[in-house]
């Protein structure tokens, strides 16, 4: 297994004290596989991604286990982590300017990890950078290499960042909302590009998104997170066809369906996600969930398995999934 995450927890220090923003999170990712992580704001999806890269905010406490290529990453020295980052694991962010330096040419920045991790000389690295820009299908790669990031459009910058991420042929790409700021037509191209790179180089992709439909189209497996906890996980098709968790079902039903009558009422989820400082016992979705019964408020729900790889964390999981 390329990546094995077991009982991951992330605690952040806040004005209200330590807050657990990721809890009891376990999943794995095989070589070449694509896994989607979906959730609303505050679900812990981005913090999970950052924990894999050891990029959690200053002072955060990460516990549990993250095994990557057989090596334990939790507790690894920053120096060793730096060796992995940008080489074996790379990350693509929503806003390319968080990864790109506005003062340096795109070519120089794509070349940098190649010099750092692969020991390439400046000229070879630059040459390779142009090839990478061509590989992410930037029009006129040589001109793009000489340009500064601000001279590129949003979609072009995203391609440049992907070129930088794939330079050292990482085995795992973590993409956090990589297309959220882009137009839908540009989004479709960027996601297709990531799909293509994955199948060409057999790298694994962890795609974090608030948009179930984005994940449905581009991932094999899916994790649904809520309030820091995995509520449901399994093969994308199975989870979308037969969701076994009320939260997943609610997410599916809240979206306007294409082709539905114009004035069809959308199903809403009452209330709001629990605030971070709220002490929780039981299921974090209790109270907002239509199936809430007393045990939901007192006891954390067990992991219920449906077949080999479909899991729902819900006291009433067996009753969900037949309404669609």
């Amino acid at each position, binding site marked *: 297994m390329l990546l094995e995450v077991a009982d991951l927890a992330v605690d952040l220090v806040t004005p209200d004290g330590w807050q657990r923003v990721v809890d009891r999170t376990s999943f794995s990712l095989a070589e070449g596989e694509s896994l989607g992580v979906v959730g609303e704001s505050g679900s812990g999806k981005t913090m999970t991604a950052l924990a894999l890269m050891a990029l959690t905010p200053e002072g955060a406490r990460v516990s549990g286990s993250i095994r990557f290529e057989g090596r334990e990453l939790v507790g690894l020295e920053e120096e060793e982590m730096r060796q992995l980052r940008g080489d074996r694991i790379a990350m693509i962010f929503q806003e390319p300017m968080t990864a790109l330096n506005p003062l340096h040419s795109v070519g120089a920045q794509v070349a940098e990890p190649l010099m750092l991790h692969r020991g390439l000389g400046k000229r070879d690295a630059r040459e390779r950078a142009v090839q990478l820009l061509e590989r992410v299908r930037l029009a006129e790669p040589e001109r793009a290499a000489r340009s500064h990031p601000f001279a590129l459009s*949003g979609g072009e910058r995203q391609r440049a960042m992907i070129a930088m991420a794939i330079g050292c042929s990482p085995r795992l790409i973590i993409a956090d909302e990589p297309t959220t700021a882009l137009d839908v037509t540009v989004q479709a191209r960027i996601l297709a590009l990531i799909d293509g790179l994955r199948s060409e180089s057999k790298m694994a992709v962890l795609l974090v998104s608030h948009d179930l439909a984005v994940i449905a189209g581009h991932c094999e497996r899916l994790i649904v997170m809520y309030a820091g906890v995995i509520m449901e996980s399994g093969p994308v098709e199975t989870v979308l066809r037969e969701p076994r968790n009320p939260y997943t079902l609610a997410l599916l039903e809240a979206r306007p369906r294409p082709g539905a009558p114009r004035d069809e009422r959308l199903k809403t989820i009452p209330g709001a996600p629990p605030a971070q400082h709220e002490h929780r016992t039981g299921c974090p979705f209790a109270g907002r969930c239509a199936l809430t019964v007393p045990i939901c408020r007192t006891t954390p729900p067990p992991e219920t398995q449906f077949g080999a790889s479909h899991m729902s964390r819900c006291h009433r999981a067996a009753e969900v999934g037949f309404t669609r």
Partner: protein
Amino acid sequence: MSEAPLLEVSSLVKTYRLSGVGPFARRNVRPALAGVSFSIEHGRSFGVVGESGSGKSTLARIALALDRPDAGVVRLDGRSLFDLPARELRAMRVQMQMIFQDPYGSLDPRQRVERIVAEPLAALGRTTGAERRARVAASLEAVGLKASDALKHPHEFSGGQRQRIAIARALITRPRLVIADEPVSALDVSVQAQTLNLMSDLERDAGVTFLLISHDLAVVAHICRTTAVMYRGRIVEIGPTQALFSSPRHPYTLELVDATPRLDRPARVEPPPALPDAPADGCAYAPRCPYASAPCLDRVPTLAPAGEGGRRAACFFPLA
């Protein structure tokens, strides 16, 4: 007067001078709006979709009379906004309000909800304190909040509730037209559904008609009976929303529909890459269009009838 459309824009032209930097900058002056015309009937919310650079936000600013067009006319209830004396324009503005994308950024955190929601009333001239409080209470209740919420501050509300506060503010002058620029795209799915249901209710019960600008076709289809698809400053297709998205006539509409992620089918194959510049005289979409041929590069297609329900498309070779 009652026969005039609620909002009518005709032949709007607006050009911004672009001073580009760097090798990829576009040096030509590109019109943000190159002759845009449509009308919105009362009670029939209208959608505008298109990508960045399509001119949809410029259109919103001009429709609200926040910006003047280089040419063209905007009529609200039959009266041309830019021909009105300043005092009458101010009075007309009360009929139109705006909701923005970001419910966090558009509410002053230091003010109480009461003051935030009452703010547009200033344009109405003098109002008594009692009248103001009554209107704020009515507005808050119309969006499903409590009258007592008026005394709280924005941070005491969730994201979805804050968007409701922004909508309550827009409603306080009892506008007939609300221009909503990406009103739900910053919201979580569960909150988005509440806001969309609220917008449907307001159209039905409060006599509000929306001009909804969004990149999300499903959101537009949920609220709007008629939709215009914009590309580089022009409307390339317009018609009843459902028909438009289920059987696009313009290749750009088809590209938008295909590119939209959906749960019920896999993502479509990668469309052809965009070329940086469009032909000076031809169809702006031609460089991206898989169906483009000779006439597309020489002349700009104009909107022509393309099916039932007043559908029109600006394409020499509309799709069947």
